């Protein structure tokens, strides 16, 4: 206490000098090598840093509290400052005052706007807290997986009013999914694009679409000259149409570069993303040679009546801001034996899907009997998406 008073008195003149000279570092005037004195000396030279006297920050705390509570801060600020300066306070007292002020301000702000607002606030905050600290999906036990799915379903109900069914079906045994695309049959109708968006709960406001259909000039294969944002009557004579999406590479570069292990290839060959583990660095987006990955620059907005309730934890559940997403071959459908939405929607039958490990499957027949090729073969990514023509 006595040291605090001494320091205050000794600092009054230098502090004023500091304020006059606007930032010139004043030499420490406190002779005693007390801990308080040492830290005060350091604080003087660091503008805006913590101090032991609590003069400036106390003013900040006072104005912050005033702003948070909506009180006028001009006249009371100086008198509050005066009161604080007059009151003899030591280092510990000053710190306690600071902490109390900031906590009060924070509590008021959080109560007004944060998750605790509203009747479900407490439950939402609790679920969000548990979700934040869960581990990577691959390391969870079955009970933990079930628990996180329950929490996510409940959060979907609380946050969006949507009763979601989030499945977590494992990869079926003896299955490796493969895809073939007939560039003679595609006419650019874009039914696949629409069906994909309706199935997979992408953000509408930034128009996230996993599938890109390129309108290409006939006579060559120049993807750089193809346009994916056409909107006119199709097919245009002299053009052909080629669709891309995630090719679920056997040797995926996106999986190799993820710094946190948020994306991996499942046993059925689908490359999946754990959205709650993704940190949004977009390294995978840079690594993908086929531009397959999409990033949520903002929180996704989906009209409530268009949210697909049948979701999968690794597939089409509603994502959050700041995570990467991509085509997953509709694993919420394909792990139940159905076709992806794009395959089902294509009116011309240009898309073929199936199990590569089944020698009687349509995809195996196409690979054996049609002239097939893949994009960027020389990169060694081994995509499981082949193109063929009539």
């Amino acid at each position, binding site marked *: 206490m006595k040291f605090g008073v001494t320091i205050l008195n000794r600092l009054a003149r230098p502090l004023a000098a500091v304020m006059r000279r606007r930032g010139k570092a004043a030499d420490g005037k406190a002779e005693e090598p007390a801990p308080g004195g040492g830290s005060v000396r350091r604080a003087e030279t660091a503008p805006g840093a913590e101090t032991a006297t609590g003069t400036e920050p106390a003013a900040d705390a006072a104005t912050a509290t005033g702003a948070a509570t909506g009180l006028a801060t001009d006249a009371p600020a100086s008198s509050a400052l005066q009161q604080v300066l007059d009151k003899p306070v030591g280092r510990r007292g000053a710190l306690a005052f600071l902490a109390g002020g900031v906590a009060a301000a924070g509590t008021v702000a959080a109560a007004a706007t944060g998750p605790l607002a509203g009747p479900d606030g407490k439950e939402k905050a609790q679920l969000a807290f548990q979700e934040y600290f869960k581990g990577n999906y691959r390391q969870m036990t079955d009970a933990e997986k079930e628990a996180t799915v329950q929490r996510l379903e409940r959060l979907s109900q609380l946050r969006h009013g949507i009763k979601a069914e989030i499945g977590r079906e494992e990869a079926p045994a003896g*299955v490796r999914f493969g895809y073939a695309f007939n560039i003679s049959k595609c006419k650019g109708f874009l039914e696949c694009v629409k069906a994909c968006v309706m199935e997979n709960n992408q953000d509408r406001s930034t128009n996230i679409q996993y599938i890109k259909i390129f309108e290409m000039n006939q006579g060559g294969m120049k993807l750089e000259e193809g346009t994916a944002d056409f909107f006119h009557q199709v097919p245009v004579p002299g053009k052909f149409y080629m669709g891309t999406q995630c090719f679920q590479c056997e040797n995926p570069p996106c999986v190799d570069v993820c710094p946190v292990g948020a994306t991996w290839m499942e046993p059925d060959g689908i490359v999946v993303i754990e959205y709650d583990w993704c940190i949004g660095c977009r390294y995978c987006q840079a690594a993908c040679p086929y531009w397959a990955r999409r990033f949520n620059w903002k929180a996704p907005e989906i009209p409530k009546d268009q949210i697909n309730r049948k979701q999968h934890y690794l597939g089409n559940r509603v994502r959050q801001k700041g995570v990467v997403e991509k085509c997953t071959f509709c694993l919420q459908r394909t792990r139940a034996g159905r076709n992806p939405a794009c395959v089902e929607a294509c*009116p011309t039958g240009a898309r073929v899907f199936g199990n590569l490990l089944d020698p*009687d499957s349509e995809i195996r027949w196409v690979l054996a009997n049609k002239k097939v090729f893949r994009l960027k073969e020389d990169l060694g990514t081994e995509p499981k998406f082949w193109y063929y023509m009539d």
Partner: protein
Amino acid sequence: MARRGHPHRGANRGPAILWRTGAGRSQGPSGPARAMLSVLPPPALLIILAALALTGCESPAERAHRNSVRARIERSSAALPSQAAAHGLSAASYLIGKVTVKAQVTGAPAFRVEARRGSIAAFPCVDCHTKPVEKLRAGQGRRAAHWSIELAHAPPTTLKCATCHNAEAGMGALRLLDGSRVGFDHSYRLCGQCHSLQARDWAGGAHGKRLEGWAGPRVVRNCTGCHNPHDPPGPVVAPRWPAIVPNAPPKLAQEGASH
């Protein structure tokens, strides 16, 4: 080669000795060579070396082929038992309510085809076709059912109504080129007579539309399920405007689309 002697030690000491043996060079090779020779007689060793030289190592191209996706796929699938038993999935529940027939094709694994007879408005045809067509045409003067059909399939020397429609069967069936009867549900046999490449692709899976699900029973659309036989290639590939995603903003340049 002769080793130069130490300048201070006088003249050179003669040729360098390549290896030393305890008992001198008359005893033969030492070390590992001796151990191997003690196990194998020299002719066997020569045979082994010759075999290695002739077979050679795997070239990079061969290794790439062995490790190619297709080769690995075929190896994995060869090791597996029956596919359906392995994954146990089926899309049969999504096909309930669809009328299907067993496909009459040879050389392909069994599959089913969506039936078409139920989609024909005026079926059975013998309800009207009680007399030969010429007599019907010359008859009471009332307008008959489908004279508005325009045949735009092939030149008239190639194709007429009677080419495909079977008058002998009372118009209730189709006819193949040799006159044999084929039902409407199996019209693919008729179309495949001229469109054999498409028929082959269709049976294999590269052409046409599969209903519901990679797993479970394979059910595909009939030819006439997508194509109008009187005016092919029919409605599915007719020019139109692309589908629009509802509630999306007007078509913007997407991420990466401009590059």
